[in-house]
């Protein structure tokens, strides 16, 4: 099994994600520069956090036009698991692979803090090891993290079970406290909080097990036993 970590100019959580995949979960991972294509033998793709293109214009909008996004789109259509974290989520939204938009936080400030997620959908490749409503202690770090959809789209999201994570408290003014969503097929997931910052016990002040299930879900999906 091989996971591709996509690197854009300005990505800054790529090395953290790579460390977690390889050193913590023993997953074969490889970096892919945004101008390159993705090879056919990739089993999952992760778009890590950061400030692609310095967040110019709008977070994620320039990276969404990078050459590699065409390959990510093709893989998403084939049902291959795709995860976007923070800026990766913003890129997936801007490229139309996920619904909704990410607006400036209600405080208008960048926010870095620990919060809790609640699992709303445990059928995706990144949540299949969770029980519904399970809590995940996890940090957020973003300036444009307020998820927004209009009422009609909200109804659709609920109907099609596309809400994956919600915050347990009001964090940034997101619609329905949404922290993560998936596409209709469920194989493309985007989330604002950083699971790669929460899976190791020495840097997680609460509990590192719940967030680890995100990566263990992917292993399970790939048929790799622990």
């Amino acid at each position, binding site marked *: 099994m091989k996971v591709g970590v996509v690197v854009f*100019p*300005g990505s*800054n*959580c790529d*090395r*953290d994600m790579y*460390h*977690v995949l390889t050193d913590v979960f023993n997953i074969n991972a490889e970096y892919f*520069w945004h101008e390159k294509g993705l090879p056919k033998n990739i089993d999952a793709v992760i778009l890590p*956090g*950061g*400030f692609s*293109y*310095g*967040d*110019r214009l709008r977070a994620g909008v320039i990276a969404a036009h990078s050459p590699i996004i065409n390959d990510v789109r093709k893989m998403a259509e084939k049902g291959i698991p795709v995860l976007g974290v923070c800026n990766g989520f913003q890129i997936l939204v801007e490229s139309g692979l996920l619904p909704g938009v990410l607006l400036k936080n209600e405080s208008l*400030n*960048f*926010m*870095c*803090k620990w919060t809790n997620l609640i699992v709303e959908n445990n059928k995706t490749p990144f949540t299949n090891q969770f029980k519904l409503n399970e809590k995940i202690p996890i*940090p957020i*770090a973003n*300036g444009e993290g307020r998820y927004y959809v209009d009422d009609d789209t909200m109804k659709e999201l609920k109907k099609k079970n596309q809400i994956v994570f919600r915050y347990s408290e009001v964090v940034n003014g997101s619609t329905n406290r949404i922290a993560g969503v998936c596409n209709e097929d469920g194989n493309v997931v985007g989330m604002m909080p*950083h699971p*790669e*910052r929460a899976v*190791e016990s*020495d*840097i997680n*002040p609460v509990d590192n097990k719940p967030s680890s299930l995100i990566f263990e879900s992917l292993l399970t999906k790939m048929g790799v036993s622990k």
Partner: protein
Amino acid sequence: MSLEEQELDELKYKIGRNPTSTELQIVAAEWSEHCSYKSSKKHLKMLPMKGPRVINEKGYDSGVLDVGDGYVVTAHIESHNHPSAVEPYGGAATGVGGVIRDILSAGTRPIAIFDGLRFGDIEKDIHARWLFKNAVTGIADYGNCLGIPTIGGEVEFDECYENYAMVDVAAIGFGKKEHLIKNHAKKGDIVVLMGGSTGRDGIGGSQFASDSLESEDRSAVQIPDPFIEKLIIEAVLQARNDGLIHAMKDLGGGGLSCAISETADALEIGIEMDVNKVHTRESDMHPDEIMVSESQERMLIVTSIAKLKKLQEICKKFRIGCSVIGQVKSDNQVHIKKGKKTVANLAADIVANATLLDLPSKEPTYLKTIEIEKKFKPVSDYSKLLMKLIASPNIASKIWVYGQYDHEVGIRTVVKPGTDASVLRLDNGKYLSAKIDGNPKQCYINPREGAIGCFEEACRNVVCTGAKPIGMLDHLQFGNPKDPEIFWTFLESLKGLTAFAKSFEIPCVGGKVSLYNETPAGSIKPTPVIGVIGLIDKKPSVPQKISKDDCLLIIGDTKDELGGSEYFEYIHKFIGGKCPTVNFEDSKKHMKSVLNIIDKNLIKSAHDCSKGGLAIAVSEICMTNQIGCKVSLDKVPGEKLDVDRILFSESHSRYLLSFDKKNLSKIEELLKKNKVSFKQIGQFGDEKIQFIYGSKSIINLDLKKTHRIWLHALPNLVLHGKKSVQ
């Protein structure tokens, strides 16, 4: 802005002719206080700079410490006071950028940022609020975009910074020892300018920073672009891995003038460069402007012709500029051309080495009477007083500040900001602890003891995490050095720091001097800021949640030392009194004992006692642990003092330990053996912060309410101009 008359004469004498206009600009930049340290350099030599872990290489802009197993840590501190006072967002942001490139220059990846911020009284002064708010946003936008965590710092407000801003930024880097850039160059090597384009921003910035701030010269402030800086970091580290860099220097104060002349001087080479080859932002720039522009996000790299192609490929990948601007010669000259025409040709050592000054100093007259205390009105309600102090800008929680900084990126942050010192995990299984501290209120009253106090406080913070201090950074910030009284305070602070560093065997690995910090109302208070780096071989002391019936114990005597305290200055509006002093022997015993106790795993947390004294330190422990505590003031060790002095004295070398009572006897035994003054003074439980004297209740505050006020006081003031407690 240009050279002073006698400096111009000296230059003419040294080169034997009249300088060209470009030569004048180059020399004026390099001989400025900011670049040359001409007033301070003679005296800075007194600081101990060697140690078993210190690695010295020529041409480094940051200090290097060996942390074992083939790894090194680099560290540096800088300020951006003048620019931030004029344009706080850009000034603070480019302050971060500059210090990060210093770390990068050694060939190490920056892994942490610290910032020390000081402004005027934000309760009264709307302008100070504006400066503060924008400086914080500037640091956040720059550091967050780079993906380097901002993990610590300090924020302080004092009337002496009215219409001014002190923005100090420290950074830490980490890397393999074998990857350190060993700066070298030989004839025929080429000189490359990498990164952002050279524009008209920051023209004459270093001279601007070397003068009193009289006019708001916004064009002297540089424009930040963190995205380019991020690309430079990745490109440089890739070039480093591929062995493409012979020598490297970041472009900071003085721009190309300083980078070229200092590189030539340090490596004992000549450099011939052509301003036409520099990639510029505007087409009609004069050679003088190109040479002194302080446009940000640029690196000077010396490489060979054979390696150039690979370097250009890396720059192309990251889409950053990469211009071959010159070549290495053997004549030790800095030779600047525009096409074929020479515009400057000077010996590198003349440019890079300004004549050092030996300025006169004289003890300030105000110090003769400063220790005399005045009589205060008796305090009727200590609960109300403590609440007022908890809501004061200097004491209130700074979560509004560090909550805007990404302090988790890089996944190294084991102990997060908001405690004593932050702790990072390193790749060799060890942990790094670091903290910066300043205390201008105390330094004003006693420049020597105040500076020592900052140093000890930073050490105490690091010790509380279980780390042994291994290196120090000093940032000495004062007013106009030509005033003998100000220069005396500079020398006193420096002497104090030297004495402490030598006695504790903590080498100074880097530092900066910032002079001419003058506001319209006069000089700032002496503001040395000290950074201490500590190393933890095993496990750090990560604060554990305190529970009911746990014990509170204090190490160290509380003395009648309230000069410069928050209590005197904020509550009584009185500047003066006796400044706390550090007894070196006690200080060492206490550090050793705390480290011993942490090593034996006997406590849940250690917290140092500093700003606001015992009352604030206890309140902070209660609030961060969401548990009350009852403290007996009559048990506090030290001379017999009035209640207010026990509560608010800011005596040094004091630590508060919280632990399960089953460990009390072991801790007492260890402390007795080490001949340390200590006492168990309180017990945790309930939801009240209580102080009693004998059976008399002195303070009784509701924990939840106090916590709420502490958390919200700062944003309420900054964003809404509202004081939380009248």
